[in-house]
C-alpha cells in the first residue's frame, strides 16, 4: 500500500460513519455516561489508528480485546453488540458479528473434549467478536484438574497470535472479574480496554422503563408512572436486583396484569388507548410493595 501524506479527517470520519453508531448508542442506551465516554475514546483511537495505517505509520495491529465489568443488567451485552458494529465500520473486524458464549460452550466434560470445543467456537467467531459472558467461571481454582484452564490457554494463544482475526470481549461482575484477572495475569496483559459499567440511578431506570414500553407501544398513565417510581425505589433495596433486566421483567408482569384487567370486563368497547395505557393498579398489585410494607413494619 502506498503511504498517504494528508487525510481529510472529516471525510474519513464521515466515510466510516461511526457517528451514526455512536448516536444510536446515545439514543438507545440511557445513562451509562462513563461507558459512552470510553467507547467514544476507543472509537477515536481506532479512527486515528486507521488513518495511521493509511499513512503507513502504524507498524502493528492494535490490541482490541476488552473487558466489560459491571453488575447484572447494566447493558454489557448490548454494548458489546454495538462495539462489534463500531469495529466493523472502522475495518478492525471483517464481518462484525458477535458470538456470545459462556463457560459451557468452551469447556468440555471429559479429557480431550475441551480443545476441539473451544477451537470450534473460535472458528465461528473469526472475523467478528467473541463475547464471553461471566468469564470468571472459566477458571475454577478449587479444582486443579478443571478443564477450564485448557480453554483459557487456547484463548490466550489465539488472542495473541490472531489479533487481526477476532476481538475477545470478557464480561462479568466487577469483583469476581478482578480475582479472575489476578489469577490469570495473561488475560490482563492481553486486554487493552477495561470498561466499567455503573449501576443505574432511579431516574435512569424510569427512563429505561418508559423507553421499553414505548418500543412495545405501551405507556404509563400519570398514576402508573408515580407508582412505578415507588416500585423502583422498593425493588432496588430487595435482593437479586439486576438493573434494567429487573425492570424488563417487572414490565412483563405489569403487561400481564393489564391484560388480565382488560379481559375481566368483557362487555365494553375497547379503544386503542385502553390497550396501550398501563394504570396505577397494574403496577401496585406487585408483590414488591407487599414485601416493602413488611420490611418497613418489621
Amino acid at each position: 500500500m502506498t503511504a498517504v501524506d494528508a487525510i481529510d479527517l472529516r471525510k474519513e470520519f464521515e466515510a466510516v460513519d461511526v457517528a451514526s453508531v455512536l448516536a444510536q448508542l446515545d439514543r438507545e442506551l440511557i445513562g451509562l455516561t462513563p461507558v459512552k465516554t470510553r467507547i467514544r475514546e476507543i472509537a477515536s483511537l481506532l479512527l486515528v489508528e486507521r488513518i495511521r495505517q493509511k499513512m503507513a505509520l502504524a507498524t502493528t495491529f492494535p490490541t482490541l480485546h476488552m473487558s466489560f465489568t459491571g453488575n447484572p443488567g447494566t447493558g454489557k451485552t448490548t454494548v458489546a453488540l454495538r462495539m462489534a458494529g463500531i469495529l466493523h465500520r472502522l475495518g478492525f473486524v471483517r464481518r462484525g458479528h458477535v458470538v456470545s458464549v459462556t463457560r459451557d460452550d468452551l469447556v468440555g466434560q471429559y479429557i480431550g473434549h475441551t480443545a476441539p470445543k473451544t477451537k470450534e467456537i473460535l472458528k465461528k467467531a473469526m472475523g467478528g467478536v467473541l463475547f464471553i459472558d461471566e468469564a470468571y467461571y472459566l477458571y475454577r481454582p478449587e479444582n486443579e484438574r478443571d478443564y477450564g484452564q485448557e480453554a483459557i490457554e487456547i484463548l490466550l494463544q489465539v488472542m495473541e497470535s490472531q489479533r487481526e482475526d477476532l476481538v475477545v470481549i470478557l464480561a462479568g461482575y466487577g469483583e469476581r472479574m478482578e480475582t479472575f484477572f489476578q489469577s490469570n495475569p495473561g488475560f490482563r496483559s492481553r486486554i487493552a480496554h477495561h470498561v466499567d459499567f455503573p449501576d443505574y440511578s432511579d431516574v435512569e431506570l424510569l427512563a429505561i422503563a418508559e423507553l421499553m414500553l414505548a418500543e412495545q407501544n405501551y405507556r404509563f398513565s400519570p398514576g402508573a408512572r408515580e407508582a412505578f417510581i415507588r416500585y423502583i425505589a422498593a425493588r432496588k433495596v430487595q435482593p437479586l436486583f439486576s438493573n434494567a433486566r429487573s425492570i424488563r421483567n417487572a414490565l412483563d408482569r405489569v403487561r400481564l396484569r393489564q391484560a388480565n384487567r382488560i379481559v375481566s370486563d368483557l362487555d365494553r368497547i375497547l379503544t386503542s388507548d385502553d390497550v396501550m395505557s398501563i394504570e396505577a393498579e397494574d403496577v401496585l398489585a406487585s408483590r414488591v410493595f407487599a414485601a416493602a410494607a413488611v420490611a418497613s413494619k418489621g
Partner: protein
Amino acid sequence: MRITQGCFSFLPDLTDDQISAQIQYCLEKGWAVNIEFTDDPHPRNTYWEMWGLPMFDLRDAAGIMKELAECRRVYGDRYIRISGFDSSHGWESVRISFIVNRPKQEPGFRLERQEDAGRNVRYSTHAYAATRPEGERYGD
C-alpha cells in the same frame, strides 16, 4: 507430472489469499466447507479422507485457513483439496472442489496396455507413487 483436478485446474496453484477468497465465497453461499487429503492421486479415487468435520455456519474464512494450515503441517506431503457442499434442496451435492496442496515430487502415471482377445487393447493408468504403501508414497 503435475496432477490437476476440480475447479481452477487450468490455473497455476492458488495462493493462500486466493484460497481464502474462494472459501469466503463458499461461506457466503452457505455451503459447508470440507478439507480432504489423500496420497492416492488416481483421478478415479473419489474417496479422500476428511480433515475434521465439515465446517458450516462460520462467517469468516480465517478459521478454515487455520485448519488448512494445521492439515498442511501434518499432511503437507499429500494432496489436499477443499470442497464446498451445498445442502440446499435440489442441489445436495458438492458445488466446488479445488486442490490446495500437492507433494513436492509428483512421479506421475504409468500407462499399462493389456493385450485382449482379437487384438483389442485395454488401457489402465497406474500411479508410480501408489506402488509404495499408504503414508510412505511421497517424501523420503
